[in-house]
């Protein structure tokens, strides 16, 4: 049995599938990074992904263009995120509640709109929607093993990897990123030098919505070729865990997203080996819980060390004084 599992894990198709499965989690996790660094917790990622997934399907079917469908998914994602901002920042509702409302809208509202658009309730079989193309990367595709793993993915998978870099550039190499980080960490300081806290929060939420929209679009226009009810299956929440474990850093979040992608891919394969489906489907979520526990323990340790450090420094200073 163990041999079978190892055989799967070290196979080329498995490695390929990790990247594929990681893609939507990575988009959503990067969305969480941008919002969270500005101090606004976007818990509505799951709902935004659902809404964008459906939007992509409907608009690509109407226009018969995958590109337009993708663009509409991104715009809708941004608008829904800005709506969370409107409720939380202008009307002063709790941002968690606003996010939960969006999630419920995402799971219920998409069914209604799919029914209106296609007449179906389960999945969008009647809509002739488009998918984003897969691409082979020149040179890399010819490398043995590695080429088979890295090449031939959906274009959005490459966009997701590129976004890791872009989000890092945004946060650390641009004035906007500097302002996002200050607003998230000490809004008073930002305010005192004339940085509008609300404006920056809205911009961060907007970017977050676009990224989550890309994740949703990938679900229905890449990962699958149609829209299913509840097709995101908690990926928006797993992404929040990935962001927390990645400490809000783009690269760290990429690595934790890969970990969740691995768990998800493993779950898919274990099922084919005859493990009970119910048990196997728990795998990614068990990973989430274990991951969060490890993360919490490590931050607590770190805090303890800092406290210890300042105490010994204090003792040292006292001695120097005496």
């Amino acid at each position, binding site marked *: 049995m163990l041999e079978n599992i190892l055989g799967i894990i070290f196979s080329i198709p498995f490695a390929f599938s990790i990247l594929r499965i990681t893609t939507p989690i990575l988009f959503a996790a990067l969305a969480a990074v941008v919002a969270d660094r500005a101090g606004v917790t976007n818990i509505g990622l799951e709902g935004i992904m659902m809404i964008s997934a459906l939007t992509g399907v409907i608009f690509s079917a109407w226009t018969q263009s995958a590109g337009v469908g993708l663009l509409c998914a991104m715009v809708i994602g941004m608008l829904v995120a800005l709506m969370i901002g409107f409720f939380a920042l202008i009307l002063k509702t709790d941002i968690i509640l606003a996010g939960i409302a969006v999630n419920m809208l995402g799971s219920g509202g998409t069914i209604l709109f799919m029914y209106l658009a296609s007449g179906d309730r389960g999945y969008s079989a009647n809509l002739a929607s488009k998918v984003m193309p897969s691409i082979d990367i020149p040179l890399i595709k010819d490398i043995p093993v590695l080429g088979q793993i890295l090449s031939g993915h959906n274009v959005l998978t490459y966009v997701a990897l590129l976004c890791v870099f872009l989000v890092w*550039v945004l946060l650390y*190499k*641009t*004035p906007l*990123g*500097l*302002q996002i*980080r*200050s607003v998230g*960490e*000490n809004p*008073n*300081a*930002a305010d*005192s*030098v*004339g*940085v509008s806290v609300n404006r920056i929060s809205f911009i961060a939420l907007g970017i977050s919505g676009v990224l989550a929209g890309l994740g949703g679009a990938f679900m229905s226009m890449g990962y699958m070729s149609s829209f299913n009810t509840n097709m995101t299956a908690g990926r928006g929440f797993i992404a929040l865990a990935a962001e927390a474990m990645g400490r809000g850093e783009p690269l760290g979040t990429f690595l934790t997203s890969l970990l969740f992608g691995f768990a998800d891919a493993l779950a898919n394969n274990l099922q084919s080996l005859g493990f009970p489906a119910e048990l196997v489907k728990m795998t990614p979520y068990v990973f989430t819980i274990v991951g969060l526990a490890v993360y919490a323990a490590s931050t607590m340790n770190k805090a303890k060390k800092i406290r210890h450090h*300042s105490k010994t*420094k*204090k003792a040292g*200073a*006292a001695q120097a*004084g005496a």
Partner: protein
Amino acid sequence: MEDRSEVVRMKGITKVYPNGIAANQSVDFSVRKGEIHALMGENGAGKSTLMKILFGLEQPEEGEIVINGEKVVLSSPNAAIAKGIGMVHQHFMLVPSLTVAENIVLGMEPRKRGMFLDYARAVSLTEEYAERYNLQVDPHAKVMDIPVGMKQKVEILKALVRGAQILILDEPTAVLTTQETTELFRELIHFKEQGHTIIFISHKLKEIKQITDRLTIMRAGKSMGVFDTADVSEQDISRLMVGRDVVLKVEKEPPSPTDTVLSVTDVHYQNEYGKQMLGGVSFSVRKGEILGIAGVEGNGQRELVEMLFDMNQPDSGAIEVEGRPVAGKGQAYIRGLGVSHIPEDRMLYGVAAAGTIEENLIADRFQKPRFNKGPLFKMDAIHEESDRLIEDYQILCRSGGQQVKMLSGGNIQKVVVAREFSCAPKLIIADQPTRGIDVGATEFIRRKLVELSREGAAVLLVSADLNEIIELSDSLIVFYGGEIVAYFEDTSTLTDLEMGEYMLGLKRQSPEEIRRVIHA
């Protein structure tokens, strides 16, 4: 008469806060170009409010502001910055995880290729200003890793980079060690030589005498006048700053103290920045007496009170209640020894604002058998207790079921006092018990404190209100710089003038005189 060298003139400034407190009443204030001007006054005298108005953080009800001869309306800090005014806040406005250079350029970031942050330029800008003004900082260090003194330099640089010609420093030395203070003063004199104007908020006489050219003294929201620093003695300043407008009288019998309840022995404490806040404090409080602690805020009183309730622990020394040490024992244990506490911040430590009056009143006693029946509360007994306390302590409310936050400040304080006084305390620690509350509630609480002490409780009273501390205390100690500098066994002949000189560090008694406060 128009003074041509005047850079700031504030005329007839009146500011009344929504809670009715008039922080500034028709205040005139002016500063000349290139001077270091001290703004002095006790806590609550209105100096911070006046400066917040000058920096655009508050809007006055009346009055006008003239900067460089031009009448201006300062509606926001940005408007003030545009007029060349910079402020260094007492609580730093810095982002800890950003570097020094990033903090300095925040909101005015240099760019390269249109959209990228030009970090190298941010660093060179920081270095350029650091060099010009002789403020040594490490542009690449993260703010969370640098000492307090350097954080303050970063704040000053932030203001200078934004073109501040007039620099307001709000109690800049409060967080600094002696060496850092000396360094800051050298820097301030350097700014002055470069033509900058500095407004220096402080209540430390020695510092003021040392570096300022002129000073304005405020008391109770009014200006007491402008003086050339060289022309006024420290005694004059003390008299103008500290003083009672109305002398209050509290009727009380002479105390007859017996056994020691609280004894504090040689307590030392350094705060997290390495600044010594308590340097060998020893005193005791006996049954049946009220011992007052007077002093300007920030001289170690808060740290001491926190230790009495184990919210903080001394680096060395002992604190005992009836011979039992309290450090590390937790609040429940200390309350069990018969200690009660009226905290300085009643909304944070005194009440649960969203809870009902009743819930707050029984917060220290709900576990007692008489309020419980198995897993359930005996609501009848609780209602009875709460109604009795509401009546005894004259808490104005509709019923015990009303939320505490709906009450006035005075009535909220009465809820705290009712709970803390009705548990048969052996020792009462009253920290600013009447701050910011109405006259009626104030009088009621003072009368109760005297009553309990005469019935045998030991009372430690900490108050910044001179009237209160002199009239209510039987004897009194003065804190200055984390040490006890005076002990007055009998307060009945004490004058505010005399107190002021000790509070501001002009005088101190001999160790022998101070030692009398320890009743072994």
